């Protein structure tokens, strides 16, 4: 039984379809990535609106403008970003073994996952911008409240700037989730510990640095100068770094256990 030749394989399907099928894999259950977030956002919004109703019903006209200014700083909508971070973690952690089991390469998987996150960021940014437009048109949902146009989202900016701001926020959270998930997939608990340690080091270390060099005012000044748009745009830097690192980390990850 001598082997004469090695059997050869038919060529692989085209690159883009190999990456696109990962997008379809991650969004296979449309509820998770597309329906549920809107439901959550809607619910939080509704709750907020009811709370404003209650608050304003008990305030006089002069106190109202104070309250409205306060609401501009409300972080209520941020739950949606936390959801996106968790989504990214789940997608990377659980779709990775299945994608490999189906015969995908790690490269295709990582690129596909990132493409998914970028597309979702665009979709949600558009959705939020529409929400913001409606908010403006209804003059704060009939109560002068702000949900989509809070300070963090560049409340007073023109729509395409707002779109950009939303997009940056979403991208940041998606890719932060990506790097943590990648560390976990590659090195399990140890990887996660290292990731958190690095994060803690950066935050505490950064804070310590600013304190000892007494340059906190420089930080606040820069943020003030950049404005919301500029500051949020800078979030793209850690986002891109996380994406790049995530890619490198997953290159040698295995679907263990």
């Amino acid at each position, binding site marked *: 039984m001598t082997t004469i030749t090695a059997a050869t394989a038919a060529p692989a399907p085209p690159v883009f379809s190999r990456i696109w*099928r990962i997008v379809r894999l991650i969004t296979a259950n449309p509820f*998770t990535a597309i329906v549920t977030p809107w439901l959550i956002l809607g619910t939080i919004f509704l709750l907020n609106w009811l709370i404003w109703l209650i608050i304003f019903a008990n305030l006089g006209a002069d106190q109202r403008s104070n309250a409205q200014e306060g609401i501009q700083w409300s972080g209520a909508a941020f739950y949606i970003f936390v959801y996106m971070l968790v989504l990214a973690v789940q997608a990377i952690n659980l779709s990775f073994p299945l994608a*490999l089991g189906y*015969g995908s*390469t790690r490269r295709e998987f990582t690129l596909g996952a990132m493409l998914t996150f970028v597309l979702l960021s665009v979709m949600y940014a558009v959705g939020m911008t529409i929400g913001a437009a409606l908010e403006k048109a209804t003059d704060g949902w009939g109560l002068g409240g702000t949900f989509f146009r809070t300070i963090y989202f560049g409340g007073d900016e023109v729509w395409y700037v707002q779109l950009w701001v939303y997009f940056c926020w979403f991208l940041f959270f998606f890719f932060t989730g990506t790097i943590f998930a990648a560390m976990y997939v590659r090195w399990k608990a140890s990887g996660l510990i290292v990731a958190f340690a690095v994060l803690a080091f950066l935050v505490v270390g950064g804070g310590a640095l600013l304190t000892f060099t007494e340059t906190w005012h420089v930080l606040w000044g820069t943020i003030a100068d950049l404005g919301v748009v500029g500051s949020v745009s800078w979030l793209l830097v850690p986002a891109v770094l996380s994406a790049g690192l995530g890619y490198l980390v997953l290159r040698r990850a295995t679907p263990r256990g």
Partner: protein
Amino acid sequence: MSAVIEARSLSKYYGGERGGRVHAVEDVSFSLEENRIHGLLGRNGAGKTTLMQLVTGQEFATRGEIRVFGASPVENARVLSQLCFIKESQRYPDDFRVKHVLGTAPHFFANWDPAFAAELIERFRVPVNRRMKKLSRGQLSAVGVIVGLASRAPLTFFDEPYLGLDAVARQLFYDTLLADFAENPRTIVLSTHLIDEVSNLLEHVIVIDEGRIIIDADAEELRGSAVDIVGPRGAVDAFVEGREVLHRTGLGGLASATIARLDETERIAAREAGLELAPVSLQQLVVRTTIGDTPDLSKGDNA
């Protein structure tokens, strides 16, 4: 005859350099021919799953070489698109229902047959709308088996596919596999420790023990390579004189010995000596090769 998988001195070690190192696969070399059903047999933890993960590029080899369809499978889309390997311990995303698995699999397997998949869902009675997390062990195995069969991938792996499947479902799997293999020939690698159930399906057998290959043979040859002779102790001892004895056991005045294949004359001679000949099943052969002798109870032996 072409080889679809070739491994040379393949090794996989886990852990550090010192005592804690695990040799999951140790210096393994073999080649698998195209369009055959190959059996990868061995005890739990012998290295079957690790070996399959190495061959499918899911794990990285520590040493050695592996060629699938002539090239390394690692990060090789061309090779990987010909493979299907759904492990028995396969994890699925939390939000996946069975229908999502069946909906996403076709994108990864060019030969996917949706009608066949639907038929198998019926036959194995898998609830299409249930969450993967809520499936019973048997249903989970069934999904893996269905994907493996319906993918019609040129190189398909079944890693202990029967776990959780009851006897009826297992028989269904074997029958379906055989029928589909006959109609749509492809290379199939089956790992199992229910050896006797699959022994008639296999053409080529590889037995792995503690990471090393101890048997690599044509199934038919292997089956006929040994025979049990049973009879009075004296007669047995006399007959096996000068022969290689693979295994010996006994009870009272009766003894049994497993020896290498006998030709027709020798068989007649054995019968005339008052001995009975019994076949050695593949499972018995594998077990005896991996654990050695069973205690001879009449002599008060301890193994």
